[in-house]
C-alpha cells in the first residue's frame, strides 16, 4: 500500500487507464441521471437524436461502457497496467451481485420463458450462484468489472434487440400492478449505468482499498446529490404551482388594502387578506387560516415555553441527577416521539368534553402546546447544559444566591439556545395537521376570522373570564390544505387553491426554520469569537 503513491508518480501507462475509466464514470453518471429523470417523467425515451431513438442510443452506450469496463478489468488482471487489486471483491459486493442475478433470473424464467416454478426456481438459483461465483472467485479487478460490465451489456442488448419495446408490459398474476415499459426501462438503464459507473470508479483508482474508496465515494456523492435534488425539486415545484395563485391580484398603493384599526394598508393581497368564502369575495383567500395559525403559534408559545423552560431549569439547576431526572428524560423523549394523531385523540378525550363538547381553538392551542412542550424542554435543557460551570462558580463565589445566579447569569447565557429551540419547535407545530382534525377543525372554508381580542368578557362569577372566539372552531393553514383536498372549493379551481395554500404554508413553516437555523449559526459563531 505504502508504495502506491510512488508508483503512480513514475508510471505513465496508468494515466491512459485512468483517463478511460474516468470517461466511463462521466458517461455512466450521465446515463444514470437521464434515466432517473425519465422515471420522473421529466425526459422521455421517445426522443430521437440524429434519427436514432434514445433507447437505442442508450443500448449502444451501455454495451460500449460495459465492454470498456470489462477490458479495463482484464488489462489490470494481465498486468498491462499498474493496479493494486485485493484478492477478492469481498462478500457485500458479491452478495449484491447475487441478489441482482436472482431477480434477473426469476424475471427471465417466469416472464420471458413463461415457465412455472420448475423453470424459474432453478434459473434464479443458477443466475444468483453464477454471478456470486464470477464476482467472488477471481481477483478483485476481474471480479468487480466483469459482472458489472456483463449486466450493462445484457441491459444494452435487451434495449437494442427490442425485447422491451415502448408497448411492452408485464402483469404479474398476483399483484395489482402492471409494469409498463417507460418505468421499467428507466429503472433498468439507471441501475446498469450505476453499476458500470461504480466499476469504472473502482478501476480509476487502481482497485484495492483506494479503488473501493473511490467507488463508495461516488455512490455516496450521487446519493447526496439525489437527496438534495429531490428536496429542492419539491420546494421548487410547490412554489411553481402555488406562487401564481398566491400572488394573484396584488395591488400596491396608498389605501387600497383592507382597514386595520381604522388605517388602510398600502397593499391589497387578496389570497392572504380575503376570507375563504363569502358573497363579496372575488378571490377566495386564506386569511382565517392564517389568523388561526397565528393564534396557535401565540397560544402554544405562551403555554409551552414557560413550562418547558421551567422544567429545564429544574432538571439542570436544582434536581440531583438520579432516578427522577432519568424518568423525566425518558418521558420527555417519549412525548417527543408520540405520534401527533395520538395527541389529537388525547385532546378529543380530555379537552373537548371540558370545553363545551365542541371543537375549539383553545383545545387546538392546548393540544399543540402539549406537543411543543417536549421540544422546548429538550432544546432548553441542552442550552442550559452548555452554559459553562465556570459562570455558575464565579457567581457563587461572589456570594450570589442560587436563584439570583440562575436569573441573571445562567438564563441570559442560555437564552440564544432557548430561542432557537422555540422557533424550530414552533415551525414544526405550525405545520401540524392531524390533531387539529380531531379537536379544532370547523368549517372547511370559514367566512370570518377568530376575533380573540374582541371577545374577552369579564364577569364576577366563575369562570370570571370567557372568550367565545377561543371556544369556537377555527381553521389553520395546514387544516385549510386538508379541507381543500377533501372538500374542494366549490366552483373555484380547487387544485390551484390547494397549491396556493400549500405555498403559503411552506413559506410560513420554512421561514420559521430558516430564521431559527440562521439565529443558531449566528449565536454559535459569536460564541466562537469570544
Amino acid at each position, binding site marked *: 500500500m505504502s508504495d502506491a503513491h510512488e508508483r503512480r508518480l513514475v508510471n505513465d501507462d496508468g494515466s491512459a487507464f485512468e483517463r478511460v475509466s474516468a470517461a466511463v464514470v462521466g458517461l455512466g453518471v450521465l446515463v444514470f441521471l437521464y434515466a432517473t429523470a425519465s422515471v420522473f417523467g421529466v425526459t422521455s425515451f421517445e426522443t430521437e437524436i440524429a434519427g436514432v431513438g434514445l433507447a437505442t442510443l442508450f443500448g449502444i452506450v451501455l454495451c460500449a461502457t460495459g465492454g470498456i469496463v470489462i477490458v479495463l478489468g482484464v488489462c489490470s488482471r494481465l498486468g498491462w497496467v499498474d493496479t493494486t487489486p485485493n484478492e477478492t471483491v469481498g462478500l457485500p459486493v458479491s452478495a449484491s451481485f447475487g441478489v441482482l442475478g436472482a431477480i434477473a433470473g426469476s424475471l427471465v424464467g417466469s416472464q420471458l420463458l413463461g415457465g412455472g416454478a420448475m423453470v424459474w426456481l432453478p434459473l434464479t438459483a443458477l443466475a444468483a450462484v453464477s454471478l456470486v461465483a464470477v464476482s467472488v472467485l477471481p481477483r478483485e479487478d476481474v471480479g468487480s468489472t466483469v459482472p458489472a460490465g456483463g449486466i450493462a451489456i445484457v441491459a444494452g442488448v435487451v434495449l437494442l434487440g427490442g425485447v422491451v419495446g415502448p408497448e411492452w408490459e408485464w402483469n404479474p398474476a398476483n399483484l395489482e400492478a402492471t409494469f409498463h415499459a417507460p418505468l421499467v426501462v428507466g429503472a433498468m438503464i439507471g441501475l446498469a449505468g450505476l453499476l458500470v459507473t461504480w466499476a469504472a470508479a473502482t478501476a480509476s483508482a487502481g482497485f484495492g482499498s483506494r479503488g473501493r474508496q473511490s467507488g463508495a465515494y461516488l455512490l455516496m456523492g450521487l446519493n447526496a446529490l439525489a437527496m438534495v435534488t429531490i428536496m429542492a425539486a419539491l420546494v421548487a415545484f410547490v412554489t411553481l404551482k402555488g406562487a401564481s395563485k398566491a400572488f394573484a391580484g396584488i395591488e400596491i398603493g396608498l389605501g387600497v388594502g383592507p382597514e386595520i384599526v381604522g388605517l388602510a394598508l398600502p397593499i391589497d393581497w387578496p389570497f392572504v387578506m380575503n376570507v375563504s368564502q363569502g358573497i363579496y369575495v372575488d378571490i377566495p383567500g386564506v386569511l382565517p387560516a392564517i389568523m388561526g395559525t397565528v393564534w396557535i403559534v401565540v397560544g402554544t408559545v405562551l403555554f409551552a415555553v414557560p413550562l418547558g423552560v421551567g422544567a429545564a431549569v429544574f432538571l439542570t439547576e436544582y434536581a440531583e441527577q438520579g432516578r427522577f431526572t432519568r424518568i423525566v428524560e425518558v418521558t420527555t423523549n417519549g412525548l417527543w416521539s408520540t*405520534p401527533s394523531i*395520538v395527541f389529537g385523540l388525547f385532546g378529543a378525550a380530555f379537552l373537548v368534553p371540558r370545553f363545551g363538547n365542541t371543537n375549539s381553538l383553545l383545545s387546538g392551542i392546548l393540544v399543540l402546546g402539549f406537543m411543543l412542550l417536549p421540544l422546548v424542554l429538550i432544546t432548553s435543557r441542552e442550552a442550559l447544559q452548555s452554559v459553562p460551570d465556570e459562570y455558575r462558580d464565579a457567581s457563587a463565589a461572589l456570594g450570589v444566591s442560587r436563584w439570583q445566579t440562575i436569573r441573571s447569569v445562567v438564563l441570559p447565557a442560555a437564552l440564544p439556545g432557548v430561542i432557537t429551540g422555540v422557533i424550530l419547535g414552533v415551525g414544526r407545530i405550525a*405545520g401540524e395537521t392531524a390533531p387539529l*382534525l380531531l379537536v379544532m377543525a370547523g368549517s372547511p372554508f370559514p367566512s370570518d376570522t377568530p376575533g380573540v381580542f374582541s371577545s374577552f368578557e369579564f364577569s364576577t362569577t366563575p369562570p370570571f*373570564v370567557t372568550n367565545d372566539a377561543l371556544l369556537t372552531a377555527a381553521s389553520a393553514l395546514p387544516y385549510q390544505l386538508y379541507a381543500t383536498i377533501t372538500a374542494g372549493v366549490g366552483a373555484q379551481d380547487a387544485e390551484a387553491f390547494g397549491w396556493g395554500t400549500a405555498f403559503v404554508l411552506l413559506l410560513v413553516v420554512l421561514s420559521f426554520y430558516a430564521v431559527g437555523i440562521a439565529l443558531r449559526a449566528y449565536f454559535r459563531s459569536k460564541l466562537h469569537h469570544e
Partner: protein
Amino acid sequence: MSFTNSKTTRIVRSITGTDRVALVAGSVAAVCLLGAFVSFLVGSSLTAVFVVGFLLVVGYGWYARQALAAKGLAFLATVSTLLTMGLIIVFVLREALPAVRYMGPIDLLLLTGEPMWRTGGEQLYSLAPAIVGTLIETLLAVMIAGPLGVAGALFVSEVAPSWLRAILKPGIEILAGIPSIVFGYLGLVVLNPYFASSSAFGLPGLGSLLAVGLVVGVMALPTVVSVAEDAISSVPESMKQGSLALGATEWQTMTGITMPAAFSGISAAVLLGVGRAVGETMAATVILGNVTDLPTPIFDAFDNTTTLTSLIASQYGNASGLHVNALFAAGAVLFVTVMAISVVSQYIERRMLRTLGGER
C-alpha cells in the same frame, strides 16, 4: 431501606428548615392547584376559582420569597411533563377499553375474516388491515430512509468538504420542516396519478401503499440524516486519526472504525425514522383510499388499504359510540408501539455514550 430513610429525613429537615410563611403559602398553592386539577377533571366551574387562588398565592410568594417560589414553579413545570404523559396514557387507554371488551383483544388485533370493519348493524372492528398497512408502509419507508439516510449522514459528516457541509447541514434541517400535509398533497396530486398511468404501474385506483411508503421514506430522510450525522460526528477524532495513521484509507476508517463506534447512534437514528414512519398521519390519510381491507395477497404494496394513523384521521369526523372507541384502540396500539421504539432507541443511545465514554 436506609436510602428511603435518609431521603425522608432530608425532606423533613428541609421542611422544618423552611420558614412558616413559605410553608403556609406553599401548601395553600398546592391545595389550590390540586383543586383546580380535580375540578377541571370533573368539569366543574369551580376550576376558575382555584386557578385564581393559585395565581394569587404564587403572586404573593413571588413577592415575598422569590427564590423559593421560582424553585417550586420549576418543579411544577417538571411535574407537568410527567402529568401530560400520564393523562395521555389514562385517557387514550380508557377510551379504547370498550372496543377491547367488545371485540376481545385477539380479535381486535388479528381478526382477518371478511368483513373486518363494520360500523353499522352488527358492529365489527378489526385493526388487522391497518396494522398490516402500517407494517408495509413502515418497511418501505425504512428501506428508503435507512440506507440512504445513513449514507447521506456519512457523506455530510466525513466526505463532504467543509463549504459543502456548511450548505448541506442547515439545508437538510430546513427540509425536515416541510409539513407532512404538503408531502401528502404532492403525493396525491403528482404521485398517485403517475402510478395509475400507463407509463408506470397502471394501478386501477388512486392511492397505494407504495406511494405512501415512498413519500414517508423521503419525509423521514432528513430526520435520519441529522440524527445519524450527530452520532457519526460524535466519534472521537483520535480514533479516526489512529486508523489513518496506520495507513488505512478514509473509507476503511469509516467502515472499520467510525461506523462500528457510532453503530448505536446510527441505529437509534434509524429507529427514530421508524417511529416517524409509524406515526406519520397526514401523508397516509391523503394518499391512501383508506379502505379497511387487507391487501391481497398480503404483501401487495400496490394495493390500497389503510394505516393505523390514517384510519383515525379519516374516520374520526363521522364516528360515534363504539366506532370512536375502536379508533381509540387504534391510537392505543400506535402509542404503545411508538413508545416501545422510543424507549429502545434511548437505551441504545445511552449504551453508546457509555461505551464511547465521550463527554456529554
